[in-house]
C-alpha cells in the first residue's frame, strides 16, 4: 500500500509557472473566461510569491507552489461532503474528487484551509479548434462542480495498466509522475511514496528545515516543504495580521 506525497524545495522554485501550465494541459482545465480574476480561476496548483517584508535590496522573495495537500488525518473535505463525492483512496492515499457526483454546494471549499479547491463558475470553453488538443485521458468537467488536484490519478491508473500488461502487481515508481513534477525545470517538486523510507519525499521530510503548512491543524498533509531560509518557514504557520504576499 502506497502513500503518495511530495516534497517541495522552496529555495529551488523560481516561480516559472511551468507546473501550473503543465497541470492545466494534463487535466483539461479550461482557459479563464472574461472576468475571471485570480479568485475565480482554476489553478489546481498555484505558485505564490512571498517576501520577507523588507524594502530595497534587503527584500527577499521566494516562490511557494500550493496544491491540494492530500490531508491524511481527518481530511477536512472528506467528512463534510454531503454526497460522499470526496474519498481517500486507500491504495494510494490520494484524496479523490468525483465531479460527477458533486452537487456544487462548496462546503468542501469552505472546509479546506489551504484553498486548494476550485469551483467551475463557468462552463468550460476553449477557442474553436482547441478542443482537439485536449488530453484524452481526462474528462472535462462542466460548470457547477468542484475540482482539485488528484496527483494526476489517471496517470497512476495508466501505470497500473502498463504494469499489469507486463504481469507485475506493483507499478514502476518512475512510471508514475504527476504533470507538475514532470514539468518542473529545477526539480523543486519531488514525488514519491512516503511509505517507502528511501523515496525522495520521505527522505526530504526527515530533513532539518522541513515543514508542512498549518501543521497544528492536525490534517497530516502529504506535501512537505523545505527551505533553508528561516523567514520562509514562518509562512507555514497562521497569518500574522500583516500582508506579505502576492500571487
Amino acid at each position, binding site marked *: 500500500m502506497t502513500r503518495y506525497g511530495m516534497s517541495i524545495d522552496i529555495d529551488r522554485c523560481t516561480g516559472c509557472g511551468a507546473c501550473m501550465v503543465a497541470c492545466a494541459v494534463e487535466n483539461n482545465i479550461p482557459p479563464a*473566461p472574461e*472576468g*475571471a480574476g485570480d*479568485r*475565480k*480561476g482554476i489553478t489546481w496548483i498555484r505558485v*505564490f510569491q*512571498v517576501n520577507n517584508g523588507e524594502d530595497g535590496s534587503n527584500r527577499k522573495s521566494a516562490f511557494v507552489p*500550493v496544491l491540494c495537500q492530500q490531508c491524511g488525518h*481527518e481530511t*477536512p473535505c*472528506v*467528512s*463534510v*461532503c*454531503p*454526497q*460522499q*463525492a470526496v474519498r481517500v483512496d486507500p491504495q494510494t492515499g490520494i484524496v479523490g474528487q468525483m465531479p460527477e*457526483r*458533486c*452537487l*456544487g*454546494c*462548496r*462546503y468542501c*471549499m*469552505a*472546509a*479546506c*484551509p*489551504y*484553498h486548494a*479547491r476550485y*469551483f*467551475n*463558475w*463557468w*462552463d468550460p470553453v476553449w477557442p474553436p479548434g482547441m478542443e482537439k488538443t485536449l488530453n484524452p485521458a481526462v474528462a472535462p468537467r462542466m*460548470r*457547477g*462542480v*468542484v475540482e482539485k488536484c488528484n496527483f494526476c490519478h489517471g496517470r497512476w491508473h495508466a501505470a497500473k495498466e502498463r504494469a499489469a500488461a507486463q504481469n507485475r502487481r506493483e507499478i514502476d515508481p518512475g512510471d508514475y509522475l504527476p504533470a507538475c513534477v514532470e514539468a518542473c525545470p529545477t526539480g523543486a517538486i519531488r514525488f514519491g511514496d512516503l511509505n517507502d523510507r528511501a523515496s525522495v519525499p520521505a527522505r526530504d521530510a526527515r530533513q532539518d528545515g522541513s515543514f508542512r503548512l*498549518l*501543521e*497544528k*491543524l*492536525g*490534517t497530516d498533509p502529504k506535501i512537505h516543504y523545505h527551505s533553508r531560509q528561516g523567514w520562509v518557514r*514562518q*509562512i*507555514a*504557520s*497562521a*497569518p*500574522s*495580521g500583516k*500582508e*506579505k*504576499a502576492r500571487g
Partner: protein
Amino acid sequence: MDRQLIARRLPRCPARQFVLWLLPWTALLAFGLYAAGLCLVKGLNQTNMDNRFAFGLWIFLDLTVIALGAGAFFTGFLVYILKLKELSAVIYSAVVIGFVCYSGAVAVLLVDVGQPLRAWFTFWYPNVHSMLTEVTFCITCYLTVLFIEYLPIILKNRKLRQVPSFLVFEFQLHKLIYVLAGAGTFLSFFHQGSLGGLYGVLRGRPFAFREGFAIWPSTFFLFIISAVAVGPAFILLTTWLVSKISQRRLVKPQVLDLLGRISGLLLSVYVLAKTVDTLIWINRTSPGSGFPAWQYYSWNPFGTWILFAEIVVFGLIPALILLIPRLRRRTGWLVSAALMACLGVALNRFVLTVQTLALPTLGFDQFVSYRPSWQETGTFLAVVAYGVLVYSFSFRYLQLFPQERALEAAPAAEAEPVEEEPVLVGRYSL
C-alpha cells in the same frame, strides 16, 4: 369583491387597496425571479462569490431566515407540548412564517448549488459524517411537516371549509397535531443545531472551529439556543408589524408580553453560553490550532467591535430589556428589543459565514472582501417578496389570529379580560 373568501366579521381592506399593496411586492418578486433565473441559466458566475468566498449572501440569508423561522416549531412546542395556551393566539401566524422562511430558504439553496438537478444525490449517497447531510434531510422533512401544518390553516378558509371532504380531511389532520408538533420540534432541534455544526466542525477554519460534546461542536447547541430565543422575538416583531400595517388589534398584549418574556429568558441563557464558549475558544481552542485569537480581529473592518456588538449590544441588552417587566410593557421598548435580538442572531450568522471566509488561513493569504452582485441581491429580495405575498394572502383570506375577532368586538380598554375565542378545529374546539 372577494368578501366571500374573507372570514366573517373580520374586516379587511377593500380589494383594490389589497392589489395596490401586492403590486410592488409582485414586481420585486418578478425581478428576483429573473435574477435567480439568470443564475440558473448562466451559472454561478453571475454572483460575486469566488473560490475564497465560496459562501456568500445566500448562505447568510438561509441561516438567518431559518433561525428566525424557528418560531414556528418552538411556538408549536410551547402550545401543544407544554400547553402554554396563551400562545395559541399566534400559532397559525408562526406556522405561516415558518413555512415561508423554510420554503424560501430551500428555494435559494437550489439556486445556490452548482448543480440543482443533483440535489437528490444527498438522499441517494448520504454521508453520515457530514453536518450538511443532516441539514438536508431534516430541513426537507421539516418543510414537509410545515406544509402539513399549513394545510389545515388553508383549509379553514371560509370558502374551502364548505367542501365537506376538505373539512373531514382537515379534522383528521388536526388530530395529528401533537405528532406533528413533536416531530417538528425534534427535526428542528437537529437542523438548527446542525446549521451551527456546519461551521463548528471546520477544523480548517479555526475562527469557526469549536470543541463540544461528542461529535457536536458547541456551535450546535448555541445555534439551537439562539434560534429558540429569537423565534418568539421574531413572532413578536411580525405580529406587531402586521398589526401596524393592517391597523387591527390581532393579539392581546399579554401574548406579546409572554413572547417577550420567553425570548428574554432564552436570550440570557444564550448570552451566558456564548460568553463561556467564546472564552474557551479564545483561550484554548483557537491557540490549540496554532491561530492566536487576537489575530482574527486585526483585519479591517472586523475588529473586536463585532464581537462586542454580537454578544453585548445585540445580545445582552435586548435580553435585559425583555426581562424587565416595566420596559416590556412599553411597546416601543418591547419591539426594539425584539428587533435587536433578531439583528443579533443575524450578526451571529454573518460572523460565522462571511467573516469566517474573509479571514486568511495560510500565512501568505490575504484578507478578502466580498460584496453581493445584483443578481444575488435580487434573489434575496425575491424571497422577501415571496414571504410578504404569501403572508399577505394568508392574513387576508385565512384566520391567522384567533383573538382578532374577540378583540374587534371588545372595547379598547386593554386591562379588561376578554373572553378568548377558542382555537377552532373546524367546528370543534381544542
